[in-house]
């Protein structure tokens, strides 16, 4: 076998995995064009940066939800976890821990909570839907206990860094995608998808199904906490309920990106594309002076259409 063919295997596999994203890509392009037409100013560096900053939290939670759904599970506590992240970030930065310590504490919290949930789902074998539902109560409660009302403090330095004029956010996004690709290329990362695709088969193949699952929830938790930290930096304070709408947004973005509830199917870039599409649509609706809540209607409609369309097409195409 020639060297060129060997090198090509990885990229050939990546190309194949993109196959389902064609339709989404077209819709995304159309939405982007619409946005550019309505707001030509988007191409200015500052406006583009602001857009990415608005998109970032949704992108993060979409990624977090995707990682969990790839293992065949689901996370209904995404919103409260983001809130908790913002609350912890805003509460620890004034303490002796300082800014850096606060950041670390927030991320560690995400990893810790995620690992716990992962353990309950993977080892104790309780259904993810009810475990994360219960956790959503617990996490929301803890956030309310720490900060009953929005408050706390985030140093201006951090806010400027993350939500200021420099394209730090875009950089973070690129890092996220790179980290994920690297992880997917490791045996543990591949095992994660295999475990979601055919759990019994993966187990028989010697894949550490339990370890993959726990690490998936841990990574997901970290991303959610990061989103909370980011939101706190954006607003300058912590808010125990700020993340509530993000659970639905995360699931919607993942579903748009082709991620299946059954596990093993879908890609992170698909979910990111889905979250990008939703962000663009929200901004477009804003410019069209539609009431803010029209976004709810559109979001819901998008979800139904995206999921129903392939089924309708399959039903129409039945080979009889």
């Amino acid at each position, binding site marked *: 076998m020639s060297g060129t063919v060997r090198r090509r*295997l990885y990229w050939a596999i990546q190309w194949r995995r993109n196959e389902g994203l064609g339709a989404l890509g077209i819709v995304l392009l159309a939405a982007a064009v619409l946005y550019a037409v309505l707001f030509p100013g988007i191409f200015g560096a500052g406006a583009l940066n602001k857009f990415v900053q608005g998109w970032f939290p949704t992108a993060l939670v979409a990624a977090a939800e995707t990682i969990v759904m790839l293992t065949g599970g689901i996370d209904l506590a995404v919103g409260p976890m983001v809130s908790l992240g913002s609350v912890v970030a805003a509460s620890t930065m004034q303490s002796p821990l300082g800014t850096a310590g606060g950041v670390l504490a927030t991320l560690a919290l995400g990893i810790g909570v995620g690992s716990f949930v992962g353990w309950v789902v993977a080892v104790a074998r309780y259904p993810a839907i009810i475990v994360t539902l219960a956790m959503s109560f617990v996490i929301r409660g803890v956030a309310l206990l720490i900060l009953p009302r929005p408050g706390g403090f985030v140093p201006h330095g951090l806010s400027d860094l993350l939500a200021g004029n420099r394209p730090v956010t875009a950089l973070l996004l690129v890092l996220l995608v790179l980290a994920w690709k690297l992880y997917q290329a490791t*045996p543990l990362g591949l095992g994660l998808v295999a475990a979601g695709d055919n759990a019994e088969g993966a187990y028989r193949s010697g894949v550490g199904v339990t370890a993959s699952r726990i690490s998936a929830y841990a990574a997901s938790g970290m991303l959610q906490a990061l989103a909370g930290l980011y939101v706190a930096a954006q607003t300058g304070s912590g808010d125990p309920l700020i993340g509530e709408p993000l659970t639905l947004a995360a699931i919607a973005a993942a579903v748009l990106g082709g991620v299946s509830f059954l596990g093993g199917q879908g890609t992170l870039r698909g979910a990111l594309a889905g979250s990008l599409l939703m962000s663009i649509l929200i901004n477009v609706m804003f410019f069209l002076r539609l009431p803010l809540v029209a976004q709810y209607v559109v979001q819901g409609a998008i979800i139904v259409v995206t999921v129903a369309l392939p089924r309708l097409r399959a039903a129409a195409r039945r080979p009889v």
Partner: protein
Amino acid sequence: MSAAGAILGARSVSKSFFGNPVLRDVSIALLPGRIHALLGENGAGKSTLINLLSGTLAPDAGTLEIDGDRIAALAPRDARRLGIAVVQQELSLAPHLSIAENIGLGAAPRRWGMIDYRGLAARVAALCTGVGLTEPPELPVGRLPLGRRQLVEIAKALFRRPRVLILDEPTSSLAAPDVAMLTALVRRLRDQGVAILYISHRLNEILDFCEHVTVLKDGAVTADRPLAGLDPLGLVRLMVGRDPQDLFPPYRAQATAETVLQTNGFRSGTASGIDLTLHRGEILGLGGLAGQGQEEFLLGLAGAAPARAAQFRMTTGAKPRTAPFAGVAEANAAGLAYVPADRKREGLLQPHSIRLNLLLPGFAAHPVQRRRRAAEAATSAELAGRFTIRGDLRRPVQALSGGNQQKVALAKWLPLAPSILLLNDPTRGVDVETKREIYLALRAMAAEGKAVLLLSSDTPELVHLCDRVMVFHDGRVAALLPHGAATEEAIVAAALGLAAPAAASVPA
């Protein structure tokens, strides 16, 4: 039973599920450089034994032996490390991952903690050539038909360079040229010193290249000996414990001339251009290798899959039906009942009581009715009595043995008084005694005037029970053989697409 130099073996292992003993005091030894056949009927315990040997399950009693060391249990990871590879019927592949990633799953070469795709590509290419896979390695496995996926599974087992290779019916979905390639491959491995355990129902295959045989019957070992001196009949006698003739009730031609279902140009899934005439009191067999369209034909008739026909006529009810059914409920209402092949996932509600399972079709047919527990108890008791299903009917049906579960899957349709019964491999995984009971029940139903369409992967069933046999090949009917002409050779020949040895086709 212990043989010196065995790489892998089991010593007096036993295993039960839900109180049902599946393996009883079984011992077996796999020697390097020997092709060891494992024979037994469906439900004799072969799959469970393989699961024990490969670490997927742990024995309730007894020990395993690896290189002479006794251990109580094995984890799949350890088994792999020790060089034990299994190719099971239930594939372990991830449909959305590529062929290459599946082959290397859990054992891919690494570089700096990540998967070395170049190394993987090289090794996968060599393996695919050896196994006969020509598809591009980046193709998602889910796109391949079952037979090709089986080849991927085999390549995956070989990827780890095993010392012990266990093959569970590897040729069941393969076409003839692939079978030849596989046989050659297995012989090469034997010459390299690999210990091979080979499970197959194809007696000719076994006699062709296996050297030693262990026979399981109802969970116990009834024979463990070299194959020299055995012929197919001898093997069957070892498996069944008696001459095959005793298994089947004497054949009686009970088919009447009255047509109950007639169709031309029937199409469903991969089956097309099928003509069928079914008579009252007839048992019509559907045969052929796996995946040749006979199952899709049956599902289409049952209303469980979309179907079309140039001409269709079913005259069981007051009004004749002139188009294939769009749904199972419709088919049931017209007097047609379908018993699926997979009683775990399709035939029965496993965690629910035997009673509820028996009553389900009745409930489904007339849902707007009050529950009458006394009448229900009486009906289910009567059904259970007729089919000798013993014990408390309130137990979950998964507590029953495979054979008894199959009886429930069949009995549940009787209250609907169907005129036509469609059976999909009803005796798969069923013990000998229950098989006999099912055969008698089928004969009785035919005598009552029901028409039975029997899809079977067990050729003797088709030979001894059926008035006619439709053999499928490549989605079409390759031969339609009447009872006398439907010999095992004729059926197998037609299944393989060869011209029948004697001119035996009759018009539909």
